[in-house]
């Protein structure tokens, strides 16, 4: 499984959505991505990629696509 698959799988599992929705997925765009879902998804990413996100990055992590850019800062290429 490559990084993109691991990354996508976390969103699919955390928010129980279909793959087609990933591209446009944003915070609060589905009921499951609320404040609790956000924290749970962040925790899963940290575990999967063995990183600890900084507070500002957790706040900025507002969409599936933008999250890829944030992970670049942690040397995770998606």
């Amino acid at each position: 499984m490559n990084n993109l698959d691991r990354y996508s799988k976390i969103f699919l599992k955390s928010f129980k959505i279909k793959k087609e929705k990933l591209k446009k997925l944003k915070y609060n765009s589905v009921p499951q991505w609320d404040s609790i879902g956000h924290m749970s998804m962040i925790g899963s990413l940290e575990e999967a990629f063995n990183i600890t996100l900084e507070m500002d990055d957790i706040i900025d992590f507002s969409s599936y696509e933008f999250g890829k850019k944030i992970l670049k800062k942690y040397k995770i290429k998606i």
Partner: protein
Amino acid sequence: MKKKSLDSLELLDYQPNRYPFLMIDYVTKVIPGKMANGYKNFTNNEWFFPIHFPGHPNVPGALQLEALAQMLTVAITTLPGNKGRVTHAISHTVRFKREILPGERLEIETKVLSWKRGLCKGLGKGIVAGEVACEAEMIITIPEILDQYIPKK
């Protein structure tokens, strides 16, 4: 916090619920961020026994779960900076295994599985006379902390 136990007055600093909704009497041992144990005595004078149920009084399941959640809360609110903060329940999965009758004591054991950024996942177990009466997997939050990490859109 250095103390390892909280009596009925001390625990009020770490648990915002009050009579008749305070469901823990004493915290016998707390390790902040890790665990909290204690008990609740259910005397004949409890407000709910006359109505739950007439002729067959027993402790409502919702209040058993509340007792577990309140004890888990203490394990978090005793961490530095959390004293007096309000907590909310997010989701609880509970199993009831035994009735609790007037005069019985519920021993409560809770364990923190994770505590990060205002979100706590934990386990709780209620024991009466050596038997497990209820068990729960719980997620609680301190909204004041959690909200600091939410995207601002």
